[in-house]
């Protein structure tokens, strides 16, 4: 693909389905702007997001344009539209457009960063016990591929509060700095790199983390880098200001809470760090080898950061370009503050109601619900089941029964000796959804206790696990 001069064309107009209309109130009345099965109680926006119908319609218009003339679209039209979408996301997170590129999803963007770092023996990666699974694997792979890189896990445990979580990071950091490996290298005059992988909101459980404080803390130390897994941030956290916070790397999904089409994420790399990202993953045709640049300085200067990310192989351009229609839709609904005001309030009230029905409690016990945004985690009335095989059976049982029997979903998960359910409060939800979910999980938990596990948390006789762990 050549560097054709971009063609400025207007993006498709907002969907006719809502132009000129007043948005309905949040809650079930908004379901008509989504495409769920009638009656499906979706309390799991956090996993895959949901594409509003107007956004799907806008994507169809873009798709039609692509299919009418793929070469014209990809070679001449795409670039300007892509830049505009990046600009809109950059504005939303207080960053500059030149620092924001698009990737398929957060895991991909995070790994692009991890793989770009020039790892040395004695480098550390700090993660937590609630770091997202595939991200943990990406970190483990780095350790596998670079023997001598040491992993340190910060344990996030009860009570779940911002100060406590921050202290856990501080303690983990101190542990690293006082480790024999770190001390040995600093005595030799070296300063090993520490990369801290911190979530803005963790996934399971869905908790707000003191990520800005962790970033600030890391900045106070030499050769400490922050890699922020912000998968859940866009469209949920209001008033992000990366210009101010200045993490080293920050990646967030647009298709989770920001209403874009699957799959699209933004990778933020401040200018000072762009030299680290030598290549996209996979390598783009716009990669410039330093050797080639040395021979021909008219080539773009490595790493040619933004241009590399413009095209890394043939893909469907509509998810990236759905950012515009997604943000238009959210603006029509009242904007980020209004949306998230509703969702957070519902998460808190819904969580309380759910805990009532289950006879349990919320994970967030702080007086001001300081670790709750739009996700809430409520304990399930189950005993401890420490064995992996048992966890797999219970997890599989809940998923099947909920999706096929109750026509509802919110994922169960196990943490620190207890089972929990994570609910996502979205603009189409209301309190009755939490009540329904409570009834479902109450009954299903009773079934688990009756048929699947005994009081000791072991599988009942005659009940075998048929599902493999992975």
């Amino acid at each position, binding site marked *: 693909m*050549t560097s*054709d*001069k971009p*063609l400025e064309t207007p993006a498709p107009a907002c969907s006719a389905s809502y132009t000129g209309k007043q948005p309905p109130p949040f809650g079930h009345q908004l379901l008509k702007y989504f*495409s*769920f099965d009638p009656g499906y109680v979706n309390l*799991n926006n956090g*996993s*895959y*997001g*949901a594409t509003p119908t107007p956004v*799907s319609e806008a994507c169809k218009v873009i*798709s039609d344009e*692509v*299919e*009418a*003339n*793929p*070469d*014209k679209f990809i*070679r001449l039209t795409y670039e300007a539209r892509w830049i505009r979408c990046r600009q809109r996301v950059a504005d939303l997170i207080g960053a500059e457009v030149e620092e924001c590129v698009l990737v*398929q*999803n957060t*895991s*991909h963007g995070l*790994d*692009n960063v991890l*793989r770009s770092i020039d790892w040395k023996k004695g480098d550390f990666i700090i993660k937590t016990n609630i770091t997202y*699974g*595939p991200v943990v*694997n*990406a970190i*483990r*792979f780095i350790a*596998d*591929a670079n023997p001598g890189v040491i992993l340190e896990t910060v344990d996030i445990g009860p009570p779940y509060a911002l100060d406590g979580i921050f202290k856990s990071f501080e303690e983990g950091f101190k542990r690293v700095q006082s480790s024999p490996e770190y001390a040995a290298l600093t005595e030799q005059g070296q300063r090993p790199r520490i990369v801290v992988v911190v979530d803005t909101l963790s996934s399971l459980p869905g908790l707000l983390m003191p990520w800005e404080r962790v970033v600030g803390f890391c900045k106070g130390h030499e050769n400490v880098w922050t890699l922020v897994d912000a998968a859940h941030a866009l469209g949920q956290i209001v008033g992000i200001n990366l210009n101010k916070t200045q993490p080293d790397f920050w990646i967030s*999904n647009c*298709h*989770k809470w920001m209403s874009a089409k*699957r*799959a699209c994420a933004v990778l933020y790399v401040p200018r000072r760090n762009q030299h680290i990202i*030598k*290549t996209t*993953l*996979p*390598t783009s*045709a716009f*990669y410039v080898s*330093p*050797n080639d640049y040395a021979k021909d300085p*008219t080539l773009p200067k490595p790493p040619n950061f933004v241009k590399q990310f413009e095209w*890394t*192989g*043939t893909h*469907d351009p509509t*998810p990236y370009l759905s950012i515009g229609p997604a943000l238009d839709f959210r603006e029509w609904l009242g904007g980020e503050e209004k949306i998230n005001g509703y969702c957070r309030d519902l998460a808190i009230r819904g969580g309380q109601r759910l805990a009532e029905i289950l006879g349990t409690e919320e994970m967030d016990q702080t007086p001001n619900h300081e670790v709750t945004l739009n996700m809430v985690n409520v304990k399930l009335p189950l005993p401890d089941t420490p064995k992996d095989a048992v966890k797999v059976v219970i997890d599989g049982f809940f*998923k099947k029964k909920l999706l*096929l029997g109750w026509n509802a979903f919110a994922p169960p998960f196990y943490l620190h000796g207890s089972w929990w359910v994570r609910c996502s409060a979205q603009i189409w939800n209301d309190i009755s959804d939490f009540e329904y979910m409570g009834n479902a999980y109450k009954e299903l938990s009773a079934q688990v206790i009756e048929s699947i596990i005994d009081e000791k948390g072991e599988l009942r006789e005659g009940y075998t696990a048929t599902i493999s*762990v*992975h």
Partner: protein
Amino acid sequence: MAIDKLPNSAPPNHSASRSAQQFPSFGHQLLEHFSLAPGYVNLNSGSYGTVPTPVIQACKAITDEVEANPDKFMRLKYGTALTQCRERVARLIGANLDECVLVPNAIHGINTVLRNLSWKKGDVIIKTSVTYDAVDKATRFLADINPHPTLETISISPPYTLDRMLRAFEAGLKKVQSSLEYTTLTEQGERPKILVIVDALSSTPGLLMPWERVVELCKTHENVWSLVDAAHAIGQVVGIDLKKIQPDFFISDCHKWLHSKRGSAVLYVPLRNQRLIKTTLHPSAAYITTEEYVNDPSLPSPPNFVKQFEWIGTHDPVLYLSIGPALDFRKWIGGEVRINAYCKDLAIRGGQRLAEVLGTEDMDNTPDHELTLNMVNVRLPLPATPKRAVRIAIEEFFNRKLLLDWNTFAPAFYHDNNWWVRCCAQVYNEVSDFEHLGRAYKHLVAEAIQNIVDEKGELREGCTA
């Protein structure tokens, strides 16, 4: 819902008078089943493919199902649906199901292999002067980082024949193996790895390459591996039999010639080599660390190849699943043999006609058109323009004018000191498309010579890229 079937037993707009036995005629009549803008003369399906309208409609039905209940689809349905697609693709290329996984595109798949292989100082990657640009860049990146494997580029030069190409590979391999570094390391008992990247069909120029024989050549040498960039192969090369050919790695786009949606490709890794692919390009939830497995042998043993590729983070599942409807469509219009017989014949005749209009020649001047399948490369009557800035200016000029003024496209490219145009013959094309393109390029070449480039191949005064 059977998602790999077309919505009706006969595709939409299917004339009631046609019997199930009769296939539709190829050519402009088939445009009815594509969504190209009326009047747009598309001679470039080789870059981004074209999706038939019935496939788009089948995909919409899948998308609707996903949006109706994303969790239900992703968690309970997708795995089986994906396996069905993989099965159909595996059959098409004569491979086993457990050797085929889907990736977003050939570049992704090729990088997956390149970044997984363990490289040592002295290892060599052999590519060619027609290796696809992005693949070439991927090898350059590898050479730029520790331990800096060496790159060796084989020149594919005229006269172009399959035999000469094979001999070029043989000579290139010999050159590497007789180099001082290679012989020294081999004598020390550390024979370096040689990875040969060979195209099934190169891109620009679009030429069939003797890839099966190159694979065989690699097999006769110790520690020489074949990576087949088969981006253009599926849906163009008929009767691929990987069980027989046994390349070490083979990657092909389905969205180029197989009519699936953009963002679907197959990565073939025979069982014997799967231990080398430790991770998907970015690790997934199914990545198993060696440490984990040692501690718990009840886990799947690394690398858990197929499972790792099943889910690499949230993506649009429709792209992979479009392969089913695409194959159904191709079956409906007559199947792989019939489709490619038409396209190959048209590529040859179209190329001849184009060369006549331009007053030049086909790159493939072998008596049997042995280098031509569905793509044809015809020379443009421009002077040599070795400077990069000039080439960029000319390419940009052609791209814009073709797409905006002449409502047609086939990419111009510079190769061996000459300008060429590569045309893709598809089921909806006819010879008149090549004539139209010829008129366009004839006019634009004249304009380029008058306004952009002089006889020495330099930019004219006042003209900047």
